[in-house]
């Protein structure tokens, strides 16, 4: 596919003059540098506006054609789009229903007849995979006329079962990011690919002569078998060359822990579906970024059914996470105390809490799990391996396999040796494949300055953006997005997915495979050939073609999951190497829930995604606990300075309920200097505080108020269900399992009876209709992973409004996840409540709209007619659930051509002055209804899923036909736990909730209040 330039039909060129004919000399000429300057002058919040203004200018349009006449015309004129469709379409003969294979083709056949499966307006789905930290998320990607528009989980793949995570969902926006690097550059000047390969010839010959001793390859975590094999082949040919790996959010401690326990690095895999008791030591395994989280959430949530054998989750954590808030028992403990708490005893701390946990573990041999957070020291990982073995969990709930990671080298050591070699002048050719080490390397390596110095002759960087690292390398090759290039990757269980592209590279980007091929002197090898060749070698059976097509179609290569490995923990005594001092204030470093290590900081969807607990957008914060805030007289918004061994950063305070005392948590990924229009200069950079010795936890930090304040944009107004006057509102209903068994319908509020209406119900019967839609959300299953928000944003073309507008309370999410706390601020219970439109039967919004822009459909939907809306906002005022969103300004970007490609063509792009809200994905309903009508049947239960439902890894949302007595949604709604939010208002919502039931340990039940103090008293 990558060499398709050659096969482009000449029409593409023929069409160009119509655009390029405009006389450029008469207008001011723009060049890339000026554009960049203009863009640099605008920062995050202004981005959407300035972008549109810039892209609309004649100069810009002209520059586009001057700079990339061919590529630009491809997107803009009809002829080449047809050519594009033609090439792509011819490859689709084998497209199936759930997943399709796309075979690149070189034939040039005029598109006389429409290919059988290409129907304009009908999407197609292709299986591929998104990779984060080396772990693949298997996906099915929706493609509308060869433009990827929506990302779904691959329901056949064991790592997804249909669920996804926020990063995978939002990676679609990265594909269309207009800030992506678009050209190969040498010292900022545009070069051709041939110029690059020519330029590499000299250094490579020199390197070959020295067996590669002056060559270093720096990658991110690699699980791609093809890439690993390519690099290994190169290393075999050049034995002195070295392969370094760096990931700021790394699993060094996990690997070291495995080495301690087993003497080798193994992958630990859990099976939460069989776990009755789960103990999480600071492991945020129910949020994106934890390997296998989608599957783990699915398995965990399936066991949260109070009518079946419900599991019990204990979380002991140093910084509040959504996982902790889902716990049946949670204890807040400083990270520096973990070692002392757990390493001195052979088991658990002897506090009441510890004893209860221990007793529970003992009483559930083989059906318990101890999960340890990636950042805890290796000893605790080793201890957990030991404990899991002692409780008989290994082979039942815990499995050990080959590492998914192809190069398990200690990241920190690996990058350090690279930096040392560079400094010592041992490196002449440095190839950085992805990542952003100039920004995220440990501060003590001073990587940016050594990269900037002239100690390395040739520096090649493959990266999607012209970021901090790209600036310091001579060669910058734009990295192709995973949706436009071939690769492969392993999921958390080792299953290999072939990463197949859905679109030709938008900007002629290259993949890591192609760069490594250049090193191996195969400069024209395309990604597709490289990946296919690798699998041809691996494939032992007869029919490779069939194997290849099936793997592409299914989204994974059969039989590549790693089998469990027999390893035995040989724990003698790992006395804690040196437990960090628990005195003073500790500083925890964590990946950001929304933008991870900073790689997603130019992704507007993720920047504006409210973080699971704080609901904070566009910024990171200095997170402290309430006791500490009181003691230091700090409040929200206060800007403090953190001083760690002379390194200082400033950030705004966030007081987080449930955060341990004397402890600060800060998050990676912000304070970027070259992220792009969205991410640059948002938040503050904490990497300068992070050293290789103290990558996750630093002690001896000083915190000083600066007297300044800074407004943090949180999307949730108030986070407890108890109002300030002390009255409790029944928003999320919760009981313990015992109470639930006594009174299963505890959540039911008294609803005004049906007959309180002037209308005769029998005159407007829904049961005469085929469909009557409804939704139920199981709060017990919801883990607050935020996935539904991004899925909805992507499906429904929801705009990003920017930090300033979010601060003003104008974020546009159609579904939000409310987070509430209950109980003592030091250790509260947490609740998550996804709130889409309730589609009320007695909708207060419908009554008050003067222009009938929101009306009830015959299928019970509360329809929104954008064309009719004049924007009085009365409906929103009258909506008790505040789910309506208003386009106060022109929030939607109507100009940027990339975003035009991205949008779901089935959903209207709303302009300013119009109210919008959740529609139960009415476009999907219509599509299925039309299909059903054509087949003279009705929509089958389960066939039709809303976007939030489809992406939910927890299966917490069910949607369906209320007129179908056997539908799943009716089964859910008939459960005693089912309740309507604000039922006493008589709005009769069609979206109802299944109340939350927790499964506390009866032994601890009475002591709930005191538990956190007890654990702390023990230390």
């Amino acid at each position: 596919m990558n060499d398709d330039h050659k096969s482009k039909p000449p029409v593409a060129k023929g069409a160009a003059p119509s655009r390029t004919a405009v006389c450029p000399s008469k207008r001011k000429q723009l060049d890339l540098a000026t554009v960049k300057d203009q863009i640099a002058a605008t920062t995050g919040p202004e981005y959407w506006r300035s972008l549109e203004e810039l892209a609309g200018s004649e100069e810009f349009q002209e520059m586009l054609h001057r700079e990339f006449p061919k590529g630009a015309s491809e997107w803009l004129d009809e002829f080449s789009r047809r050519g594009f469709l033609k090439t792509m379409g011819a490859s689709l003969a084998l497209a199936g229903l759930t997943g399709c294979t796309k075979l690149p083709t070189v034939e040039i056949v005029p598109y006389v007849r429409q290919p059988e499966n290409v129907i304009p307006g009908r999407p197609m789905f292709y299986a591929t995979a998104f990779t984060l930290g080396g772990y693949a998320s298997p996906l099915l990607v929706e493609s509308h006329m060869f433009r990827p528009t929506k990302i779904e989980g691959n329901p056949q793949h064991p790592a997804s079962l249909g669920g996804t995570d926020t990063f995978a969902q939002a990676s679609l926006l990265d594909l269309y990011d207009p800030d992506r690097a678009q050209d190969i550059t040498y010292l900022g000047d545009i070069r051709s690919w041939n110029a690059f390969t020519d330029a590499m010839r000299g250094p490579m010959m020199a390197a070959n002569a020295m067996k590669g001793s002056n060559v270093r390859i720096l990658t991110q975590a690699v699980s791609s078998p093809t890439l690993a094999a390519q690099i290994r082949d190169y290393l075999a040919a050049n034995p002195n060359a070295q392969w370094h790996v760096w990931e700021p959010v790394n699993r060094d401690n996990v690997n070291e822990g495995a080495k301690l326990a087993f003497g080798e690095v193994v992958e630990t895999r859990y099976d939460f579906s069989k776990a009755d008791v789960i103990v999480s030591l600071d492991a945020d395994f129910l949020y994106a970024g934890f390997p296998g989280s989608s599957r783990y959430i699915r398995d965990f949530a399936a066991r949260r059914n109070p009518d079946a054998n419900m599991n019990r989750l204990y979380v002991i954590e140093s910084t509040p996470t959504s996982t902790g808030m889902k716990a049946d028992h949670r204890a807040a403990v400083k990270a520096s105390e973990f070692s002392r708490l757990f390493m001195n005893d052979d088991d658990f701390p002897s506090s009441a809490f510890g004893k209860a946990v221990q007793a529970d573990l003992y009483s559930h041999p083989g059906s318990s799990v101890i999960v340890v957070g990636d950042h805890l020291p290796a000893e605790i990982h080793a201890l957990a391996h030991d404990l899991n073995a002692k409780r008989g969990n290994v082979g039942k709930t815990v499995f050990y396999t080959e590492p998914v990671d192809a190069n398990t080298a200690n990241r920190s050591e690996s990058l350090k040796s690279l930096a040392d070699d560079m400094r010592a002048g041992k490196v002449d050719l440095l190839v950085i494949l992805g990542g952003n080490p100039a920004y995220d390397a440990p501060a003590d390596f001073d990587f940016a300055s050594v990269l900037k110095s002239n100690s390395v002759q040739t520096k090649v960087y493959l990266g999607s953006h012209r970021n901090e690292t790209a600036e310091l390398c001579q060669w910058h090759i734009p990295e192709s997005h995973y949706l436009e290039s071939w690769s492969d990757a392993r999921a958390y269980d080792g299953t290999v997915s072939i990463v197949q592209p859905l679109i030709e590279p938008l900007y002629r980007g290259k993949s890591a495979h192609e760069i490594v091929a250049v090193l191996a002197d195969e400069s024209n090898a395309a990604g597709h050939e490289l990946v296919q060749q690798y699998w041809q070698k691996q494939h032992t059976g007869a029919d490779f073609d069939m194997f290849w097509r099936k793997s592409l179609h299914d989204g994974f290569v059969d039989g590549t999951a790693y089998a469990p490995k027999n390893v035995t923990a040989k724990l003698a005594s790992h006395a804690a190497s040196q437990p960090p001092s628990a005195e003073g204030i500790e500083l925890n470093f964590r990946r950001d829930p929304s933008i991870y290590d900073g790689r997603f900081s130019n992704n507007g969807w993720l920047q504006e995604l409210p973080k699971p607990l704080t609901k904070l957008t566009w910024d990171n914060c200095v997170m402290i606990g309430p006791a500490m805030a009181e003691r230091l007289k700090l409040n929200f918004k206060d800007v403090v300075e953190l001083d760690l061994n002379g390194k200082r950063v400033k950030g705004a305070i966030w007081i987080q309920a449930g955060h341990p005392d004397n402890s600060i948590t800060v998050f990676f990924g912000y304070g970027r200097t070259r992220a792009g229009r969205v991410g640059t200069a948002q938040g503050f950079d904490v990497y300068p505080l992070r050293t290789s010795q103290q990558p996750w936890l630093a002690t001896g930090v000083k915190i000083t108020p600066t007297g300044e304040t800074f407004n943090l944009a949180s999307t949730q107004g108030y986070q407890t269900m108890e109002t300030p006057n002390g009255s409790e509102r029944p928003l999320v209903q919760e009981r313990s399992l015992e109470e639930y068994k006594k009174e299963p319908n505890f959540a039911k509020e008294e609803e005004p009876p049906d007959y309180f209406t002037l209308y005769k119900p029998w005159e407007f019967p829904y049961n005469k209709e085929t469909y009557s839609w409804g939704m139920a959300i199981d709060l017990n299953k919801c883990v607050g992973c935020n996935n539904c928000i991004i899925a909805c944003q992507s499906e429904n073309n929801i705009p990003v409004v920017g930090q300033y507008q979010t601060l003003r309370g104008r974020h546009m999410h159609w579904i939000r996840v409310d987070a509430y706390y209950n109980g003592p601020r030091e250790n509260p219970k947490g609740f998550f409540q996804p709130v889409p439109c309730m589609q009320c039967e007695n909708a207060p919004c419908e009554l008050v709209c003067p222009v009938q822009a929101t009306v009830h459909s015959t299928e019970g939907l509360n329809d929104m007619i954008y064309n009719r809306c004049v924007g009085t906002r009365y409906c929103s005022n009258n909506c008790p659930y505040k789910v309506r969103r208003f386009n106060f300004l022109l929030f939607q970007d109507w100009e940027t051509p990339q975003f035009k490609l991205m949008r779901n063509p089935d959903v209207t792009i709303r302009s300013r002055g119009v109210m919008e809200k959740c529609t139960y994905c009415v476009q999907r309903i219509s599509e299925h209804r039309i299909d059903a009508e054509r087949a003279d049947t009705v929509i089958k239960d389960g066939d039709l899923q809303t976007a939030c439902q489809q992406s939910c890894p927890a299966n917490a949302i069910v949607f369906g036909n209320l007129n179908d007595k056997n539908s799943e949604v009716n089964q859910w709604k008939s459960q005693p736990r089912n309740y309507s939010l604000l039922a006493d208002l008589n709005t009769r919502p069609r979206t109802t909730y299944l109340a939350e039931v927790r499964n506390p340990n009866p032994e601890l039940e009475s002591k709930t209040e005191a538990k956190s103090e007890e654990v702390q008293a023990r230390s």
Partner: protein
Amino acid sequence: MATNTQTPVEVPVADRRVPVIAPGHTYSTITEKISNIVLTRPISLGWILGFLIVFGMLNMLMGVLGYLFVKGTGIWGINIPVGWGFAIINFVWWIGIGHAGTLISAILALLRQTWRNSINRFAEAMTLFAVACAGIFPLAHTGRPWLAYWLFPYPNTMNYWPNFRSPLVWDVFAVSTYFTISLVFWFVGLIPDFATMRDRAENLWAQRIYGLLAMGWRGSARHWHRYETAYLLLAGLATPLVLSVHTVVSFDFAVGIVPGWHTTIFPPYFVAGAIYSGFAMVLCLAIPIRSIYKLEDFITIRHIENSAKVMLATGLIVAYGYGIEAFMGWYSGNRYDSFLMWNRLHGPYKFWYAALLACNIFIPQILWLKKFRTSTGWLWLISFTVLLGMWLERFIIIVVSLSRDFLNSSWGMYYPTKWDWFTFAGTIGLFLTGMWLFCRVLPMISIFELRTLLPEAQVHETAEVKQ
């Protein structure tokens, strides 16, 4: 109209109240005094300076509205949950102010309150300008103002019809009817005076314009008969509007389910509040005007005091409304209503609620004292306070109720932007520009109605009755 030079007749000693017209006036002095303000009085530097300021504010309004239409309502501070802000506050405030004019001209006319004759003309003008100011907001606050005409039921090819269940549609009818009736009422009341002006004007153009507006009025008995009939009919039409317009405006809130809106007390309480603020505005305008144009003879302390009494009475009704709101917050046992009251008293806007109570309830109580009722300086200050208080009342009702409603997660704060303030100030500019011009081009007191207050007119009327 021919001038009459009869000697004044003594006022009966039995009426010890301050007269509604100072003794010593005759038909001709009244005519002369009022028409001369328009026809012969030179334009003072003060008037020009003042006009430049208020006209500047009006132009600012045009500029701000232009920017609003280009950018969208997002330039204001509104958000989700507070979807209505200054625009609706100002709308309700201005509409309320208008009510005094209609009350004075219609209800007091029907009730034969003769003292109204010297203030009804400019009170009606005030109504018109206030309704004009108010009318801007419902249009400007929509997200797509170029489509706001969809609120009107009109035959169209879009198969579109407004939702008659929505109070906003009722608003459209209430406000447009109100404006129309007020305009016609005002114009009809002006016709005899236009004729007077026509007859007295020396400038040819003035004669022609007034002549045109006088619609051929010659003062014949038939004219007077028709005029009286029409005026009475219009007064009859306008009277229910005094009650209905603000009732409908209050439905915008009472029909909603937002705690703090959803209450049955709103219609009477809004109407009382409207008259309250309307009379405050009348006083705010009358006090300086009578002193600048030396109209103390016609707008006597009796008018001033009567207006103050109306204010006191309506203010007490409003206070009763607040009391009932607070009582029902507790008595209903509804957690949302009781939280609303708590939130008004202790929430983030508590200062403004306290200011509201002070401005609308506590400070006006000094009007019980005659001294303050008859002191123009004090009364002006109190009226201004009431205007402020009534603006705050709408702020509390709209913003505070919306900012914290049912779901704690969706609570928010409302911060007006400079554009909110500019728009508000701009409508004040529009209002004052109207008043400024009105003072100089139209007789601001009804000449012929004032003449009926003279004792000789009384004699004539009694004689007529005796026949």
